[in-house]
């Protein structure tokens, strides 16, 4: 009965100064959905890169047995030839190419004369898109569709390669609940067609819902493999216990708000699309944040939450911006990021790779990047003090790296996110706007981050949290605004907030009716 499609035995992978994986074993049965759980930096992504040939044979120790025979992949082409396809944590689509071109990138559909056969390309792409439930035309450019759909294009691409074993590294991290549900449904469908999947996720409710078995990795070692449908069903708490080595009693820390004076007021804020200047993105939004208060901003994908935040933050987004901003009751003009920072605002982005970090520089330099003024005299940086600061954040936020001199690009996804947060906490703003602050962060570290947010509020700062995870907003916020199609459609105090009520406001159409 134990028909294993894959066995990884004694896998050890070293990086300079770090052992990322140590004697890891993983056994995946044919036709199951196998989840991998573990804290940030546990080695999940690295294990999958070993499996898919990103780290070629010889770069690691141990054996990979696929379908009963030992394989030695020299690269990703080798693994794909064997039906192993990986979809990385950071999506790898080419934004300017069409969906069809992306699907067949590196696998172009040629006619008998050796040139690209566009009819076949588009026809086959359309067929694949149908299989993943996408209604988009194959010649749509990838940059014009949302992340959720891009994730589906990745899967269509995998299907085009006759995939036997599909690896998904945090596929739902950037998706809202609806898109996530669709994706999980799709993975179930693939399982019914006999395709085995390995899925990495920090959203444990999804794991509970979809996985047949779960392997837990901690500090580069296999801890255990849990049967999800065994005699006793496996709860989220059980997975957490494996991941962190103890139980976590509460997902959200206690927080008694002590709300002070208004610190930020945005009035009648209107923003247009940066290219298509006639398109409204934010439509007359007004919100306030008080000192000591944690305010949530809920909304579906494309509701304009990030756009609102970024346009306020030194006009970093949009065109034809109008409206008023008041800081501590006084009107301010924030035309550049520098002005916004000097006025006491900070914006921690949701897209750390593109807007948050300099991946080819060190942790230390990234942490200090927004507040070099504080660390320099006469334009000369005090590197000692800078090092001390970075070291402090490494400890406080538990950033997993052997030194703050390490390059940020070498950190695991969740630890990169902690570097973004460090940068803005160190800037010491009065108002901190956090855009998806816990994206890709493990359960234990989430708790840490909530604790930090609480502490910031207790210090009298105003915090504005944008999040696609409603339980998170309900768990930490004192007040929640909902945004729909660029308009503020609701404002709900903590006591009255429920998931249903927020959803109702979040889906409200322009004419005021719930859709």
């Amino acid at each position, binding site marked *: 009965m134990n028909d294993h499609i894959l066995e990884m035995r004694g896998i050890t992978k070293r990086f300079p*100064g770090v052992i990322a994986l140590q004697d890891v074993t993983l056994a995946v049965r044919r036709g199951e959905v196998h989840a991998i759980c573990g804290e940030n930096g546990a080695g999940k992504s690295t294990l999958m890169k070993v499996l898919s040939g990103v780290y070629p044979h010889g770069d690691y120790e141990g054996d990979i047995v696929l379908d009963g025979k030992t394989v030695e992949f020299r690269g990703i082409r080798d693994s794909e030839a064997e039906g192993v396809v990986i979809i990385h944590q950071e999506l790898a689509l080419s934004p300017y190419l069409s969906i069809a071109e992306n699907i067949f990138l590196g696998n172009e559909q040629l006619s008998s004369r050796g040139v690209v056969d566009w009819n076949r390309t588009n026809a086959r792409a359309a067929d694949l898109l149908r299989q993943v439930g996408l209604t988009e035309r194959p010649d749509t450019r990838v940059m014009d569709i949302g992340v959720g759909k891009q994730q589906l294009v990745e899967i269509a691409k995998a299907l085009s390669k006759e995939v036997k074993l599909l690896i998904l590294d945090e596929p739902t991290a950037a998706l809202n609940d609806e898109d996530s549900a669709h994706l999980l449904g799709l993975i179930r469908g693939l399982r019914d067609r006999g395709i085995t999947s390995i899925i990495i996720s920090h959203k444990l409710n999804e794991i509970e819902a979809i996985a047949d078995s779960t392997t837990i990795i901690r500090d580069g070692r296999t801890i255990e493999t849990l049967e999800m449908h065994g005699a006793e069903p496996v709860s989220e708490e059980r997975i957490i216990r494996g991941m962190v080595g103890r139980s976590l009693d509460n997902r959200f820390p206690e927080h008694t708000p002590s709300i002070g004076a208004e610190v930020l007021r945005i009035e009648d804020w209107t923003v247009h699309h940066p290219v298509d200047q006639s398109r409204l993105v934010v439509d007359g939004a007004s919100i306030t944040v008080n000192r000591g208060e944690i305010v949530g901003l809920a909304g579906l994908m494309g509701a304009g939450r990030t756009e609102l935040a970024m346009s306020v933050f030194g006009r970093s987004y949009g065109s034809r911006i109008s409206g008023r901003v008041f800081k501590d009751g006084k009107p301010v003009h924030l035309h550049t990021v520098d002005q916004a920072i000097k006025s006491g605002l900070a914006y921690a982005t949701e897209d750390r790779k593109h807007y948050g970090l300099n991946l*080819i*520089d060190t942790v230390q*330099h990234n942490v200090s990047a927004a507040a070099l003024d504080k660390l320099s005299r006469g334009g000369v*940086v005090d590197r000692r003090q800078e090092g001390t600061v970075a070291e402090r954040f490494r400890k406080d936020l538990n950033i997993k790296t052997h030194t703050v001199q390490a390059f940020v690009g070498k950190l695991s996804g969740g630890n990169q996110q902690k570097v973004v947060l460090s940068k803005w906490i160190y800037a010491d703003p009065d108002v901190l706007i956090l855009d998806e602050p816990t994206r890709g962060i493990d359960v234990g570290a989430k708790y840490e981050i909530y604790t930090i947010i609480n502490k910031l509020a207790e210090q009298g700062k105003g915090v504005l949290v944008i999040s696609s995870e409603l339980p998170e907003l309900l768990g930490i916020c004192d007040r929640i605004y909902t945004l729909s199609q660029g308009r503020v459609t609701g404002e709900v105090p903590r006591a009255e907030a429920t998931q249903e009520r927020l959803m109702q406001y979040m889906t409200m159409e322009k004419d005021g009716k719930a859709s």
Partner: protein
Amino acid sequence: MSVDMNTTPNLPAGERARVPLSQRLGGLGGNARQYGIFGALVVIILLFQVLTDGKLLLANNVASLFQQNAYVMILAIGMVMVIVAGHIDLSVGSVVAFVGGIVALSMRDLDLPWAVAILIGLAAGALVGAWQGFWVAYIGIPAFIVTLAGMLVFRGLALVLVGETVAGLPPEFISIAGGSLPNVLGFVGNADVVTLVIGAVAFLALAFTQVRARQSMRKHNLHAEPVGVFITKLVLVALGIGALTVILSFSAGGTPIVLVIVGVLVVVYSFLMGRTVFGRHIYAIGGNRAAAALSGVSTKRVDFWIFVNIGVLAAVAAIVTTSRAGAAIAAAGQNYELDAIAACFIGGAAVTGGIGRISGAIVGALIMGVLNMGLSIMAVDPAWQQAIKGLVLLLAVAFDLLNKRRAGTR
């Protein structure tokens, strides 16, 4: 969080020994690369020392090595900053000719003192840089295009100004490139004492700053390299500086003036890039422009000043070049941009920006210079010299890339 989250693998001694040396060296971060370039320079020097029967390191050859290649080093300093910020400057060769013409004409036709002419030249360089910086930073035209245009524009203007040559320049001006520091302290044997003193001071200053940096790193529990590596490094540096000093002290003039100019520029610009907020901003912009902008870096202003800066450095190179030729020549500076760019890439700068160091660019320039010198002493046909230099550029970068890939740091 619980303790076990904190454990970056703390390996037992036996485990640590199994980590390959290349990987452990890789743990030193960017430094390992830097050592590689220095190693390559040493290898090339030794190679040509053998191939030329010991002529390469004759005192007068070493002095003229610096005099011949000063312009590349000066331009490479500016160029590496431009490249780190993610741009390129193709115009420096033409700017050298143009500014050279201005300097020469101010002396010959306007009868201005040479010092004033130099200031005018530097100001002209700054203006040229401001012109190109304006288009790049504030209008948003890619630097490749702006400086390609600049290459044509300033070559044209140089032709208009200079005609063919402007000669008859004052001797003080001529001695900038060819002259040496006066040997006011006399000789020990045949060795110029001024040179020896400069060498000793340079080493002591370097050793002092290194020791202090190390001390402060240890005081703050930051990762410092092991004592062994540190001392070896200091000894090697002492040997290098010592050898150079002694050799130069026996040359006809002692320390070339251009070496002093280059030395000062290297110190100042290394400090600027490594220690100041401005330098940080350059690396931040090159590494991720959008993230830098969202961290409050005024990307346009930084871009602008980088171009003003390379304009000024091109003017310095123009002064050296004009002085060396004894005249302003409209065709001067041909291909200088390529020499400077090659030096930067040999020295480890990344084509995509964000990575590169002043010291690397200087070593890159020296590698090209030694190659030039060695091949000339061996009387290799200039046509072949050019081909060989091209191949060295390619191989140097390929070697660097493969090295990085093997260390698993892709």
